[in-house]
């Protein structure tokens, strides 16, 4: 009976190697990401921006003691100052607090970016997967449609749509989402094209798996890394387009603040208050830069071909 304790011993080095949890694509990627300082900083900054925007109400009340539509005609074009804190980034032409409006603007701009990206990822992946998997007529139709859509500058389409239909924020977000999927779908289609010929797909088909099962259970997981990378870049691109449209006075309309429409009247601030021009654009720049850096970092982390280099 005493011998039971004797059978438990420390594993040898070779056994320890077998006992450690297996390294999957995702754990590998996470390991690489954690050591990629630039990407982690970008993640951090984006997280802070997201939290600031999400908690805009709390900040506006507790810290700045100012609402985003509150006006003060005695304090227009105030320079950035700590006293009062609400004018941390100055005040605009009717005495509204720039910093509070930036917080709320961030909420709008970020949600438009994320929601629209979600829409066009869904559409782009579904369409790209279908076209790449079934090929033939469906793919011809797909190619024609994507080529057509790609030949019209998206900003033209958006501008015309926005000018004619004067959509609200939700409609606009959905429309942006429905216009930007072509790039994603082309990538997904290309990958699907290559993957559908691979042995594991043939094997799945031989045991009688249905098309939808092969598409979503076998092919989709293999292009998921690519989709994640595209998503990060996509959100950035959408935020840029929304801001340009809002700047032109056609996107998110005042009084709802967005980073773009804070600059609509910028030409009248040029001489009096340059800080009112610099801040909103800097926020857009910072956000999009973070998203693009994250995209780059994710690409490096998730692309198995790059593993050999390091």
């Amino acid at each position: 009976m005493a011998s039971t304790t004797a059978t438990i011993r420390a594993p040898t080095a070779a056994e320890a190697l077998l006992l450690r949890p297996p390294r999957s694509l995702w754990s590998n990627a996470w390991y690489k990401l954690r050591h990629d300082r630039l990407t982690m900083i970008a993640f951090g900054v984006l997280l802070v921006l997201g939290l600031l925007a999400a908690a805009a109400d709390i900040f506006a009340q507790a810290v700045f003691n100012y609402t985003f539509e509150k006006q003060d005609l005695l304090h227009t074009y105030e320079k950035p100052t700590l006293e009062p804190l609400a004018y941390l980034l100055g005040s605009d032409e009717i005495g509204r607090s720039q910093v509070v409006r930036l917080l709320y603007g961030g909420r709008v701009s970020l949600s438009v970016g994320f929601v629209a990206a979600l829409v066009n990822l869904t559409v782009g992946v579904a369409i790209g997967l279908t076209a790449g998997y079934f090929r033939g007529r469906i793919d011809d139709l797909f190619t024609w449609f994507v080529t057509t859509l790609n030949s019209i500058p998206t900003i033209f389409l958006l501008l015309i749509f926005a000018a004619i239909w004067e959509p609200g924020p939700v409609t606009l977000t959905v429309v942006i989402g429905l216009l930007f999927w072509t790039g994603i779908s082309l990538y997904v289609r290309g990958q699907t094209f290559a993957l559908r010929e691979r042995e594991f797909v043939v094997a799945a088909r031989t045991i009688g798996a249905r098309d939808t099962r092969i598409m979503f259970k076998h092919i989709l997981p293999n292009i998921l890394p690519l989709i994640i990378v595209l998503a990060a870049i996509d959100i950035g691109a959408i935020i840029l387009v929304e801001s340009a449209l809002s700047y032109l006075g056609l996107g998110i309309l005042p009084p709802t603040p967005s980073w773009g429409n804070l600059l609509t009247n910028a030409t009248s601030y040029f001489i009096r208050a340059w800080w009112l021009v610099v801040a909103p654009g800097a926020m857009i720049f910072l956000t999009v830069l973070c998203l693009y850096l994250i995209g780059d970092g994710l690409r490096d982390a998730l692309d198995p071909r790059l593993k050999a280099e390091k």
Partner: protein
Amino acid sequence: MRNFILRRLLYAIPTLIGISIITFVIVRLSPGDPIRFFVFGQRDITGEDIERLRHAYGLDKPLPLQYVDWLLAMVQLNFGQSFIYHQDAFQLLLGRVPATLQLAVVALGLQLLIGVPLGVIAALKRGTWGDGVIRVFGVAGHAVPAFWLGLVLIIIFAVQLRWLPSQGMLSVGKDVWDIPDRLRHILLPAFVLSLTGIANYSRILRTETLDVLGQDFVRTAHAKGLHERTVVFVHALRNALIPVVTALGGILAGLVGGALVVEQVFSWPGVGQFTFQAAIAKDYPIVQAATMFVSALLVISYLLRDIAYAIVDPRIKAG
């Protein structure tokens, strides 16, 4: 080669038809009655007159027939009269083309002159701080909102330093051929417009040059004892430049789309600004003419890109 070009030309036709359908539909499905816009402000119009006008303009026909009518007129470059200017929409648009063309050509030149060397330098100096700066710039150039950069540059160079003008193509009262004055006007907008392309080219060229420098024929060239400069400029660069041709299509699309915003910031009297004003005023003939024109331009440039690519890289024809 001739077959390739012919086939590629044929492919462009369904694309153009697709574009025309979208252009037609997006405007025709708009809320509001075009006839009401047309007669707006004329008090002595009766309901009967409106019906007659509707018939005269073919607006009482079913939508597909209206599309065919519109298409047939459009093929003859007849987009109808502008609602606002009461002149031929296409002619008005053509008047704005030279301004945009100047802007786009200068921007494209800047992209090639700055972007390509940046990418090559980054690749040759791989791992140094210079490479790092260029790489950061390659990402940052994409992330900058163009309109904001334009505004900031105006504040710096026009408002604060007073070195460059902020608006328009020409100072008031100057001669049309005053080239230095024109150059001063075009500098800021062209730079803003070119930024994405510069970033793009610097990224592409860096990757491509690194790729080419690692290939066997470069090692052979080195082994033959050729001068470093000869290897880079004669052997490597020629191959690394192929993607410059491929990227041109996307770059041109970026220029056309970007011009719309940049022209607005700098009050540049080009196609983009014109389209913007027309869209705001719901001047549909101009909006349709502009969309078709710009898209056709893109289709042609994609076509030329593919042909150029086939010339540079003969393997493409087979595929």
